[in-house]
């Protein structure tokens, strides 16, 4: 049996509660449609009411098509809160796959159905046309097949995404916890091993392959910098200097020159963004703050970094001077992240001055100054114009300022919004809202603030995955992350919006946006903005998180159905047919 990507199966032959829509049921055939340089996806379901041994085989497409099929077994996570099973982690398996029902390692009492995610990669040079294959389930001496039809259209999805979907993470200590097999094998050498750096690169790779960006913050709230996130320094004052690039270059070299992605279907490409290790305690010691030594240490070290990057040819990545610390964590006297107190802006101004001193005006290395803003973003847009050129804005508050995208984009700034990740218990389309919203607003991207923390036991006591879009593969003998259904659905939406965005060359962008909104949730483009609440006109020190913003429009939440993105996709494919 088969299901389209947005209808997630349960382990008993049905569809998970969150995705149920009228008339939806597993089908006896699968029909997909895709542009080129893109993936098409669906679920295959092996249903065995009596249980027992089974095998699943997905035959390949004709070799000349270039189509490549990836098969994943869907892990059914047991949610402690709701006592239900939802599929999300995708375990790569070979076709043919042999196992037994109930799946031994998933340990689901009375399981009768095992789901598989099918990704079909359509290379850019695939000839448009209809391709067919079959999937065959063998069990109890019998066999049943399901036909899979893929119609490849002539449109090609551009390599550059219309919106950047960023996946944030913090440090690297969690890798030792998430990969106990690797850690135990390597012992004390874990963090210096090639395997460790390969593991980091594999996180970048999985997000890149799935049309996303990966960020790792490399320092703490009191300025501690992880060894692989910065060159090693020695000396003090005018003698402070870089003595060793080894760990930094092992981590970042393959990311900045793109070689870490050599095996990706998208091809090698430098990462587009990276956090610098700059913070109030690095490279200059806060001991010298306000004194000549602070400027000297900062400028000398950052100048040397610029030279190193330039000499290496690392000129495609944007190097972000970004301050993540908050004074509540007691390291420094000002908020770098989500500044609420206006006097804290002066620190940002000072760092912008120092950066300007450190970096030659004509450098080909792209340094940017990033701020993650919420409470006082409107004031910061004005007062820090020309200082901050990369804004990462709280998605809720940004929706109050419909004039902001144009104002910020006209001055050349990069603009993202940030937010959380929908838990698996939300309808499958909810993650696509975070793809569509920045495009609707005419900005550049969205940040999931945390994407690598699935919880202490995501397999049998799952908390929903609102801080994870990948899972550690260690449990399955894989020294790399494995993807999730939500990540794949998000990726497919990025493909669609990137293709849709190409039609702005021939049609007014406002019309494209209006149609996308109408198909998605029967809204108008205006509905995507929220009236600024009365409290937001007061001094931000007078508001609290408990202040009532405008009531949430249910079309963006409780009534947004699982099929929302499929309607947008249908619209995009319809446009592609008109344009060909």
């Amino acid at each position, binding site marked *: 049996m088969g299901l389209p990507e947005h209808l997630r199966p349960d382990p008993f032959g049905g569809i998970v509660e969150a995705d149920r829509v009228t008339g939806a049921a597993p089908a006896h055939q699968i029909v997909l449609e895709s542009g080129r340089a893109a993936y098409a996806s669906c679920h295959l379901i092996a249903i065995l009411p009596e249980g027992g041994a089974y095998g699943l085989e997905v035959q390949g497409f004709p070799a000349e098509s270039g189509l490549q099929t990836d098969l994943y077994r869907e892990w059914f996570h047991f949610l402690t809160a709701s006592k239900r099973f939802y599929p999300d982690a995708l375990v790569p398996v070979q076709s043919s796959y042999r196992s037994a029902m109930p799946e031994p390692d998933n340990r689901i009492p009375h399981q009768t159905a095992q789901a598989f995610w099918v990704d079909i990669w359509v290379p850019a040079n695939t000839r448009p046309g209809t391709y067919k294959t079959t999937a065959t389930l063998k069990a109890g001496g019998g066999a049943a097949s399901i036909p899979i039809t893929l119609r490849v259209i002539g449109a090609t999805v551009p390599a550059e995404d219309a919106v950047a979907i960023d996946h944030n993470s913090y440090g690297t200590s969690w890798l030792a916890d998430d990969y106990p097999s690797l850690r135990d094998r390597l012992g004390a050498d874990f963090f210096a091993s090639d395997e460790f750096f390969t593991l980091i690169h594999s996180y970048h790779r999985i997000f890149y392959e799935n049309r996303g960006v990966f960020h790792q913050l490399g320092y703490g709230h009191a300025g501690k910098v992880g060894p692989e996130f910065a060159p090693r320094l020695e000396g003090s004052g005018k003698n402070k200097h870089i003595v060793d690039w080894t760990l930094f270059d092992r981590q970042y070299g393959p990311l900045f020159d793109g070689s870490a992605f050599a095996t990706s279907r998208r091809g090698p490409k430098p990462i587009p963004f990276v956090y610098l290790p700059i913070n109030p305690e690095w490279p200059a010691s806060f001991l010298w*703050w306000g004194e000549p030594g602070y400027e000297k240490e900062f400028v000398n070290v950052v100048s040397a970094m610029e030279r190193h990057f330039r000499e290496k040819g690392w000129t495609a990545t944007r190097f972000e001077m970004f301050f993540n610390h908050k004074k509540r964590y007691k*390291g420094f006297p000002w908020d770098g992240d989500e500044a609420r107190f206006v006097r804290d802006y002066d620190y940002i101004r000072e760092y912008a001055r120092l950066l300007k001193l450190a970096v030659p005006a004509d450098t080909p290395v792209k340094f940017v100054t990033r701020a993650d803003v919420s409470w006082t973003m409107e004031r910061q847009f004005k007062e820090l114009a020309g200082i901050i050129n990369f804004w990462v804005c709280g998605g809720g508050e940004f929706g109050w300022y419909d004039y902001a995208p144009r104002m910020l984009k006209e001055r050349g700034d990069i603009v993202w919004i940030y937010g959380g990740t929908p838990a698996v218990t939300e309808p499958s389309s909810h993650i696509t809202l975070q793809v569509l919203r920045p495009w609707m607003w005419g900005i550049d991207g969205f940040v999931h603030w945390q994407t690598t923390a699935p919880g202490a036991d995501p397999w049998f006591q799952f908390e929903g995955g609102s801080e994870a879009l990948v899972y550690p593969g260690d449990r399955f003998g894989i020294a790399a992350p494995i993807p999730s259904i939500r990540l794949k659905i998000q990726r497919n939406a990025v493909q669609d919006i990137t293709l849709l965005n190409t039609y702005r060359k021939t049609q007014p962008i406002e019309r494209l946006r209006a149609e996308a909104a109408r198909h998605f949730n029967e809204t108008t483009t205006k509905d995507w903005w929220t009236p600024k609440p009365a409290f937001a006109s007061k001094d931000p020190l007078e508001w609290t998180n408990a202040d009532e913003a405008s009531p949430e429009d249910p079309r963006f939440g409780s009534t947004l159905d699982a099929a929302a993105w499929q309607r947008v996709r249908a619209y995009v494919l319809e446009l592609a047919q008109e344009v060909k």
Partner: protein
Amino acid sequence: MSLRTILLLAAGPFLFAQSEDQAKQLDRVAQVATAMVDGDVCLRIQTPRSLQFLLKTDPRDPWLASDNYDVDDQAFIQTKKALMRLSRLCTEACDANLWMPVTSSPSQIQIMIRNVYEMSGFWKWGDLHQEMPPEMKRVLATGDRVTVRRGSRMISVLAPVYDSLGDIVALVEIVSQSKRDLRENVK
């Protein structure tokens, strides 16, 4: 008895002596901290407005206290620099943290300034304030310096900080780890 056990037993007295040396050194730094850290300045670190919010709770706003946390820059920086200088007296990596009792709730204490190695034998990551550990209570009540070992690796020495009236208004934690985790708290 395995070879590993024999080696550990043989190394035991050496490791203990090393730990004792480390504790003595931290104690000397803590003694200097009592002399050098200005309690009157410490009392000016947290702003009066922020203090008003410190213990406030609102079920509709779990970040009410932390979103209103604020400090006086000058007092913070002056004290932090003093703590950073103190930590330079340690031969091994150490942090000098400042702790202050919550005057409106005597059972509570808050870390007020942390430093670059992000070490503490007492701070639970992210807590704005916390229950007063008995060792800290003793320091604040008696003026004694107290040495506290956390597990086999972390040693803290707590020392009182006085204001101009002679009252103990804060304490300094001088803390070191025998095997430092280079990646802990990088988040």
